[in-house]
């Protein structure tokens, strides 16, 4: 399997705040890497460094074996291969949904409009938004906007997709409609780096989990290990902070057997 992304010993500081100290990652084609860690540990910064929204101070980043970090010119050519979706969707409010989708492929890649339009319609239908091509983003719900943002990124046919807490701003009932789209992409073999606080989703989608703390990779394991038998104390403590519900249920007789059965 081909390695798509290599992150080698990168460091990044904002003024005196050393956000990333020494982070290394590798990602093979078709695999999904989930990055978790406490708030402020540098997850967003890591993703932003990968697609050049932030310049790294040390180390290097390679896409299909080519160094992409450190250059400032032609960053747009790199970004055409790296899709990114943020928590805040950032659709273009002055354009209808279809124009949001066409802009990148037509203007950045120079693809024929009609061809892209047909593809966009197919993908909108696939995420359940076939009837929304002609409306403005403002008229959509958060979950719908985020699905449009995903389609917008996917239409660039990126080699790799970076997702930064894309459900964090959504009402709970809209989270699953967005995560289902991501699961779907994963099944189709899309290579992704996903930052999320949805641990159950993380477990379902990940091929590998990286736990980031204090700007370093503390633990790196397959999800079944990381979520059930974490090797480091810090990961254990981090996972326990998500544990309120199971512990309370454990107080009720018989409730915890189901929890344990779900573990492999």
């Amino acid at each position, binding site marked *: 399997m081909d390695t798509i992304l290599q992150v080698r010993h990168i460091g990044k500081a904002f003024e005196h705040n050393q956000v990333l100290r020494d982070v290394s990652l590798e990602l093979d084609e078709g695999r999904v890497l989930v990055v978790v860690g406490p708030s402020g540990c540098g997850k967003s910064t890591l993703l932003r460094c990968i697609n050049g929204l932030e310049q790294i101070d040390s180390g290097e980043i390679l896409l299909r074996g080519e160094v992409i970090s450190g250059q400032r010119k032609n960053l747009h050519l790199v*970004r055409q291969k790296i899709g990114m979706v943020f928590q805040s969707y950032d659709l273009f409010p*002055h354009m209808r949904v279809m124009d949001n989708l066409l802009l990148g492929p037509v203007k950045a890649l120079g693809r024929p409009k009609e061809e892209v339009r047909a593809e966009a319609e197919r993908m909108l239908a696939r995420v359940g938004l076939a009837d929304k091509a002609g409306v*403005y983003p403002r008229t959509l719900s958060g979950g719908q906007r985020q699905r449009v943002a995903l389609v917008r990124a996917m239409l660039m046919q990126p080699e790799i997709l970076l997702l930064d807490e894309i459900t964090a701003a959504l009402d709970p009932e809209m989270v699953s409609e967005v995560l289902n789209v991501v699961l779907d992409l994963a099944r189709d073999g899309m290579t992704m780096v996903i930052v999320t606080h949805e641990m159950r989703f993380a477990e379902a989608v990940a091929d590998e989990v990286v736990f980031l703390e204090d700007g370093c990779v503390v633990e790196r394991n397959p999800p079944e290990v990381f979520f059930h038998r974490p090797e480091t104390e810090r990961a254990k403590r981090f996972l326990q902070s998500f544990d309120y519900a199971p512990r309370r249920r454990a107080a009720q007789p018989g409730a915890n057997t189901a929890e344990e059965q779900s573990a492999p």
Partner: protein
Amino acid sequence: MAPALTGAFFVRGWTMDWSYIAAHVPDFLGGAWVTLSYGLIGVACSAVLGLLCSLVRVFRVPVLRALVRAYVELSRNTPLLVQLFFLYAGLPRVGVKLSAGACAVVGLTFLGGGYMAEAFRSGLEAVDRSQREAGECIGLTPLQTVRYVVLPQAFATAAPALFANMIFLIKETSMLSVVAIMDLMNVADTLRTGGGRTIEVLSMLVVAYVVILLPVSLLATFAERRMRFAGFGRQHTV
């Protein structure tokens, strides 16, 4: 017309001389044409200059940024009359001789550019930084991002200020008589000081300006409303 009736509104039997007015309509039409052409050329040039200046400021282009800053303050804090005198009477002393028309256009652009720059800047700054990042994340170049993502949104925000500047600049053409441009103001002045009937001349002047500017004002209100309510997804416009 009824001179007696009109005259009844004024003291000492004064009457509006309608035949004088009729005879001088062509003069005012000529003046209006000059006013409108210089006004619109000035608006167009200063919009371009202002846009460039605001981009320099918002994107923090080194060196140019300081120059733009100085220019904006200079243009906004000196009267057009002084700027025109400088171009018309000052520059020839250092060997730069501009025609009256060139002085007029350069002067209006110099004045308007500063105001337009500020209007565009407020519009550009109102566009969230994340919009720029979103544009660049789908592989657009920085320039494409500005063109397709940032500017359309900035225009909508800046529209009221831009239209206000447009009206302001067209009115400022009344200063152009000092460089011997035969605009409305100059036409009126020439008639009046040449022994014409003052009230008739001034009334025609007022009417001429209103006729020119009222459509622009109405257009401004209309466009502003459209920009504010259309593009951004109110259901009734879809």
